[in-house]
């Protein structure tokens, strides 16, 4: 146990030492305390942002650590969103089944990722081809789901309902002493997601600093050498792909439960671009940077849509270009490195 905790910091994650963890504690305390000061909308909106972060963290693992650019995050997002809908519409929400539905839906996404990833990585498809094929799969799934409007397209009681999307699934519920606790997008859901997010973040930190993460970055840096150190490169890439895709699936179920709605356009071209933007802008090489970057970009673009209207997409596109050119490691990583350099300089040696 202690050994695991020691893996919370290591060469693969920025931010270590007491200063970082103190800052982490402060941020966490603020996150815990802030619903007391904010209105319902703000809290619900933040919870909504949290829904997306898992997908970004998953892509960070696949792309930033594993070096494989997947455009397929939204395919798993959509798949498990629909799975959540189908399961809960058929079984209902009693006895906390929604939690079981989340687990099953994420498992389904992981299973599909394992299948697709087996084909990709064991077929030695890498580099830009991986991106193109994952994108094709995503768009094919969107097109397929878009035409399921007819009444024959149903799984049990759940109609897939084509492009209009599937709705009517229950929100998350937790079994409680006096009846189920419904996690409407409000304070309760916020805390549930915050807890889940912190666990996922810390879990991923342990994972990337452990043996697995070491091998993963080795593969990113030089796959041939990694293989010649006796590692089965395909297996590790597949592992990262499955975990990352499962996280996208988790995002999908949470989003579906949040809005009680899932649509094929969640898998469309623009949707598929979003995780790449979040991760690239924040800094794909580091989990903390991805986490911070994703929240910042989500909030920033929502604000931009409210105030800057139609220029949001232009800014988004240009931001991507500028980041790739000027700060290829990502804005947050650049910022954190800058801070670290300052910190090192301060106690003059």
């Amino acid at each position, binding site marked *: 146990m202690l050994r695991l905790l020691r893996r919370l910091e290591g060469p693969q994650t920025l931010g270590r030492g007491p200063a970082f963890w103190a800052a982490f504690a402060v941020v966490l305390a603020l996150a815990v305390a802030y619903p007391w000061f904010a209105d319902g909308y703000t809290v619900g909106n933040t919870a909504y942002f949290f829904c997306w972060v898992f997908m970004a963290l998953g892509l960070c693992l696949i792309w930033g650590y594993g070096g494989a650019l997947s455009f397929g995050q939204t395919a798993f997002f959509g798949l498990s969103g629909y799975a959540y809908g189908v399961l809960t519409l058929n079984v209902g929400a009693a006895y906390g089944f929604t939690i079981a539905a989340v687990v099953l839906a994420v498992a389904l996404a992981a299973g599909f990722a394992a299948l697709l990833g087996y084909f990709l990585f064991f077929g030695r498809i890498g580099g830009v081809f991986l991106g193109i*094929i994952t994108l094709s799969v995503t768009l094919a799934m969107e*097109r397929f789901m878009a035409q399921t409007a007819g009444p024959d397209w149903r799984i049990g009681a759940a109609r897939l309902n084509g492009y209009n999307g599937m709705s009517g699934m229950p929100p998350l519920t937790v079994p409680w002493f006096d009846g189920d606790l419904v996690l409407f997008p409000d304070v309760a859901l916020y805390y549930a997601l915050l807890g889940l997010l912190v666990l996922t973040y810390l879990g991923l930190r342990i994972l990337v600093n452990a043996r697995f993460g070491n091998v993963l970055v080795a593969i990113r840096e030089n796959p041939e050498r990694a293989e010649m150190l006796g590692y089965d490169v395909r297996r590790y890439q597949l592992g990262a792909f499955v975990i990352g895709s499962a996280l996208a699936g988790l995002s999908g179920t949470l989003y579906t439960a949040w809005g009680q709605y899932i649509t094929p356009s969640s898998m469309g071209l623009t949707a598929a671009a979003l995780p790449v933007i979040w991760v690239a802008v924040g800094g794909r090489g580091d989990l903390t940077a991805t986490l911070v970057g994703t929240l910042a970009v989500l909030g920033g673009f929502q604000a931009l849509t409210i105030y800057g209207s139609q220029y949001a997409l232009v800014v988004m596109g240009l931001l*991507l270009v500028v980041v790739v050119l000027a700060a290829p490691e990502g804005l947050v990583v650049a910022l954190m490195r800058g801070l670290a350099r300052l910190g090192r300089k301060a106690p003059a040696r």
Partner: protein
Amino acid sequence: MVLLDTVFAFLYQLGDAFAFLVLAACGLAVVFGMMGVINLAHGEFIMCGAYVTVATTRAGLPLPLGILAGALVAGAIGMVLERLVIRHLYGRPLDTIVATWGVSLAATQGTLIVLGSSMPGVGTPLGSFTLGSYSYSTYRVVLMLAALAVLAGLYLAFNATRFGTLARATIQVPHMAEALGVDTRKVYALTFGIGAALAGLTGGLYAPTMTIVPTMGTTFIMEAFVTVVVGGADIFLGTAPAALVLGAVRAGLTSWQGQLFGQIGLLVAVILVIRVLPRGISGLILRERA
């Protein structure tokens, strides 16, 4: 006569699908095959060519000149983009994908803001001809011929001109070419420009047959990628046969089961090709690394 009717109808559909795939893919294939760069803004170059063609034609230029103008403008913008963005990303193929995606998003929405949500078209020229019980658009036959002409032109450009020799030398052994005094940067810029100009040409050619909207590039992009992935890096040995096979798959499935199956069939074909010829694609990747 009925048989002839049906055969011609199928050939026409095959040629139509083939032309669309070749024209959609050729610019992408040049840039990818020669430079190893995947250009996700490819569709926006097509859109750019279409806009320029329509604007100049409506301003009074004859359509063929308008199409040429579209190709030239797209090519020029392509070279500017190469200078500003792509050049700094050689050797970082994944970053190039991300950056060109950014360009694509910004270009689509930027066009919407500046030029509005749609533009009046120019109308399809040349009318129609009738054979048996079907009537056909003559212009689409022109498109088929244009696809063949583009393939032939590319073959000549890269095999029979000094630029072509230099380009291939640069791509195969960059430092050798540099040592021989070739300005490799210029070669890359020109190659990217040619790719963009081809995309612009495609946009111009299809402009009279489509609604002119900022998102029109996206209707080409999937087909372009599919063709390039199946065809591989070599434009002549890869793209043309790939377009032929995929065109047959699509025309066959569409006439048999409808448009949805035509589309899904394309994607299944890609996955099958990659499954059957994994060495082909991985061999490609190895060559690209070497």
